[in-house]
């Protein structure tokens, strides 16, 4: 990894100040300020159309912001900055392959574009688990394999800063977990990772901090743990049906709401310890499950609120009615 000599080591990898971008009348990015620290795993979350892609493309130097400033590794990404480009890696679309090339030939070509030798392609193929497919033509790779090859395109030149756009979207659960290990290894090497995802469990498991983008603005920005704690979303106790009546349960001290859901009696509470004691005293705790609030609750709270405020007609957007956790 190259170290930046012109920058103090604690300067942020990305510094965005009051970034604006509009398309016609629509404000795609509407005054976003955020810092991504060096070595940080930073998640950018938000519903489709919230401005994630536009914001990332401004950071990558593919688009020019209408207003505000963006500094990436101490430099301006716009206009095309060929001194900065080798220091960052961008996951491409899973279609962006040189035609009629094998996986290895494609990646070796990308390596060549960064003036790296083909050995870099072999190393990277191994790190994303595509060594066995190295001689398969890109046209014949499966969806998940294409996805991993697209991620490999972002890593082949060992960049300091890596942008990944929904890297686990097309992967099966096992491949997804394998990729988590790849990403964690990159982080442990000191690389900075900025990524978008719709898998909130994944963001919670991987990210040091997440920003939740709603309508082109940052609705929340903190570590997943602190966001969950601060949101004060209730914990939920799941009891087998028939153990307690709904009314009886609702009357227990500390229970905010009791409802039958998916074969369980669900008790929502801000004080799970107290309620557990009460349930224990009444029926015992056999078969009782506890589910604490997750990042998904926070996310739905924030994005749902924006939905309601914008006057959208849709399902009741509270986190409790929409989500069924397996936390």
């Amino acid at each position: 990894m190259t170290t930046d000599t012109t920058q103090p080591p604690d300067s942020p990898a990305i510094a965005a100040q009051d970034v604006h971008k509009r398309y016609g009348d629509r404000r795609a990015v509407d005054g976003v300020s955020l810092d991504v620290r060096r070595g940080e795993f930073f998640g950018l979350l938000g519903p489709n159309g919230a401005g994630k892609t536009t914001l990332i493309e401004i950071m990558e130097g593919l688009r020019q912001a209408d207003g505000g400033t963006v500094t990436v590794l101490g430099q301006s990404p716009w206009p095309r900055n060929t001194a900065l480009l080798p220091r960052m890696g961008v996951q491409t679309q899973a279609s962006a392959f040189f035609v009629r090339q094998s996986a290895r030939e494609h990646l070796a070509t990308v390596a060549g574009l960064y003036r790296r030798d083909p050995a870099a392609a072999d190393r990277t193929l191994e790190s994303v688990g595509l060594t066995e497919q190295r001689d398969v033509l890109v046209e014949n790779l499966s969806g998940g394999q294409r996805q991993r090859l697209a991620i490999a395109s972002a890593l082949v030149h060992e960049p300091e800063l890596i942008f990944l756009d929904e890297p686990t979207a097309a992967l099966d659960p096992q491949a997804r977990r394998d990729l988590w290990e790849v990403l964690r290894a990159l982080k442990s090497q000191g690389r900075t990772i900025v990524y978008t995802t719709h898998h909130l469990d994944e963001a919670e498991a991987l990210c040091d901090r997440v920003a939740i983008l709603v309508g082109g603005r940052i609705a929340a920005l903190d570590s997943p743990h602190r966001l969950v704690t601060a949101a004060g979303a209730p914990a939920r106790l799941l009891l087998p049906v028939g153990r307690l009546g709904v009314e009886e349960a609702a009357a227990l001290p500390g229970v905010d709401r009791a409802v039958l859901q998916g074969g369980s009696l669900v008790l929502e509470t801000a004080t799970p310890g107290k309620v557990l004691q009460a349930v224990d005293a009444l029926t015992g705790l056999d078969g009782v499950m506890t589910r604490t609030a997750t990042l998904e609750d926070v996310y739905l709270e924030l994005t749902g609120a924006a939905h309601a405020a914008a006057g959208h007609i849709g399902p009741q957007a509270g986190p409790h009615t929409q989500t069924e956790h397996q936390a």
Partner: protein
Amino acid sequence: MSAYTALTAAGYRAQVRDKATLFFTFAFPLLFLVVFGLIFSGQDVEETGRPYISYIAPGVMSWGVANAAVFGIAFTLMQWRRDDLLRLIRLTPTPLTTVLASRYVLALAVGVVQAAVFIAVAVLPGFGLVLDGRWPLVLPALVLGITAFLAIGVIVGTYANTPEAVAAIANCLMVPMAFLSGSFLPLDMMPSWLRSVSRVLPLRYLNDAATGALTGTGSLTTIGTGCAALLGFALLFGAIGLKTFRWSNRT
């Protein structure tokens, strides 16, 4: 490995692995030669007394080379932009000129091989093209012609966003131009006003220079004028191509 080497190697592999395009590039012009050869076998053009083959062989060859140059780069650019491959390249430190240089060398190689195969077939007894001693002069004409038509292809590939659009635009350009420039029918058979019109078409100059070099008709000036005109077209279309180039379909 340099970006230029990497891109050229990938382009070469993509070219030789694409059987349909290989056929279109190398065998298709030969098909025209066979058809015209059969139609006009043993006949001379009344106006000049020269055999048809001495008009048709250089003409069809010029058209084949020009056509391949336009289609090759136009398809590649359209496809690279559509598949976001240009975005990938845009995010590497590789300059656009390196990308175009690798495509240029590939196009030159394709064009020269096309011409060599075509001439080798045309001199066979069945067709009976007789090569003039100054045939090597066809090389500068080919290089300049490929350059000019490559630049036209860059413009086509920049404006077309689908394979259908590339085919439509390129065919609308190249098929009428082939007839109006005398690639398929000797210009000497056409009315004089049409011959004047052909003066604005780049293919006319490639035909003239190629015919002059391969068959020895006309003076050396004809070849020189042809090359100079092709150079002019190359500079003009090259400038437009660089000016209008787009990295992405998304604005």
